[in-house]
């Protein structure tokens, strides 16, 4: 959501002049289960997500990020992959929860709110519709932050703030408490959904990072329970991922 749109929403709320103007007609139907759509063999290239833009960090963060990635690569080559929060079954949070391996997400719109549930780790985020965003600093940081949304024509625009700094961002990028995530969700066909994600962070990023996730509708799919109850992976004293085996 642009600052201008946010301002407009805030003004409307402040002046009590009613809901934000809606495009005539019902918004597009996003209800249901959506699986990642990555294109590939047999897929329509026009429907696959466009390639992501570059991530350019401020100098103060770039070297540490590069060194971490290099250490991860080196450890993986040694067969001792470095542990991450996910190894301990910690939720991914925003924005990574929107794209975890091949797992689908379920979108549940209702008046005033759109809820997103992921299959992997059963993460839940709530998007409050047609409300002004709260100021950064007024929301306790969390894994999913605070999201507000509105329809701009056929596009659902979602603004998210207040993601914990310990929750790594896209491609494990670091971020500050000033991070803002803007999503533009749009049906490119009846059954293909694109979510263009823009990450802004004036502290960490030189310029916004932009990438697009694509999903395909799964009309008959029943979301599978995912409770992390039998996690045999752990992180050893060197920071590497290990698997516990049983004696018997």
């Amino acid at each position, binding site marked *: 959501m642009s600052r201008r749109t946010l301002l407009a929403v805030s003004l409307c709320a402040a002046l009590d002049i009613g809901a934000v103007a809606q495009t005539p007609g019902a918004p597009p139907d996003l209800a249901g289960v959506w699986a*990642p759509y990555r294109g590939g063999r047999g897929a329509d290239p026009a429907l696959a997500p466009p390639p992501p833009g570059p991530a350019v960090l401020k100098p103060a963060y770039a070297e540490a990020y590069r060194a971490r990635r290099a250490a991860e690569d080196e450890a993986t080559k040694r067969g001792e*992959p470095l542990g991450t929060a996910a190894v301990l*079954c910690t939720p991914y949070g925003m924005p990574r929860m929107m794209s975890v*391996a091949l797992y*689908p997400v379920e979108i549940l719109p209702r008046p005033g709110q759109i809820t997103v549930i992921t299959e992997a780790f059963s993460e839940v985020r709530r998007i409050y519709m047609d409300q002004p965003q709260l100021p950064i600093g007024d929301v306790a940081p969390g894994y999913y932050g605070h999201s507000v949304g509105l329809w701009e024509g056929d596009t659902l625009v979602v603004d998210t703030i207040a993601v914990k700094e310990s929750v790594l961002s896209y491609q494990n990028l670091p971020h500050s408490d000033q991070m803002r995530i803007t999503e533009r969700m749009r049906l490119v066909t009846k059954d293909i959904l694109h979510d263009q994600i823009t990450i802004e962070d004036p502290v960490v990023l030189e310029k916004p990072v932009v990438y697009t996730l694509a999903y395909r509708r799964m009309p008959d799919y029943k979301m599978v*329970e*995912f409770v992390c109850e039998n996690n045999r*992976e752990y992180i050893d004293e060197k920071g590497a991922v*290990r698997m516990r*085996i049983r004696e018997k």
Partner: protein
Amino acid sequence: MGRATWAVACSLTFAMGLAGGNQRVLAHHSFAMFDTAKRVTLAGTVTAFEWTNPHAYIELDVPDEGGRVKHWSVELGSTSILMQGGWKFKDLKPGDKVSLILSPLRSGETGGLLVQITLPDGRVLGNGPGRGAQP
């Protein structure tokens, strides 16, 4: 090409897919602790089949030529990914005799990542191929 040869070819292709795109199949950790270039074939008796997340596991007693039994822990994908590959929660039970191929832990411990299994009823299953063909 005979059926067995096809099975090996399929399992190798699948394994290469795993090695190349590990984050796409298992959500929460890298595969690098397993030596995916290696294959170990085991025949034994299931002592437990745990249909759980973030991974399912097969516990297996494997006798050697001398009659001594070694115990192996075999990691599978998550239940969701396995179901997409044709698995059901009741496909195995304690006492079942199975043969399977795994990629062993690099540590040398008796654990590994399932590549392929032959169930008691003869069906051959992998470790979840992902979510099938794209439209």
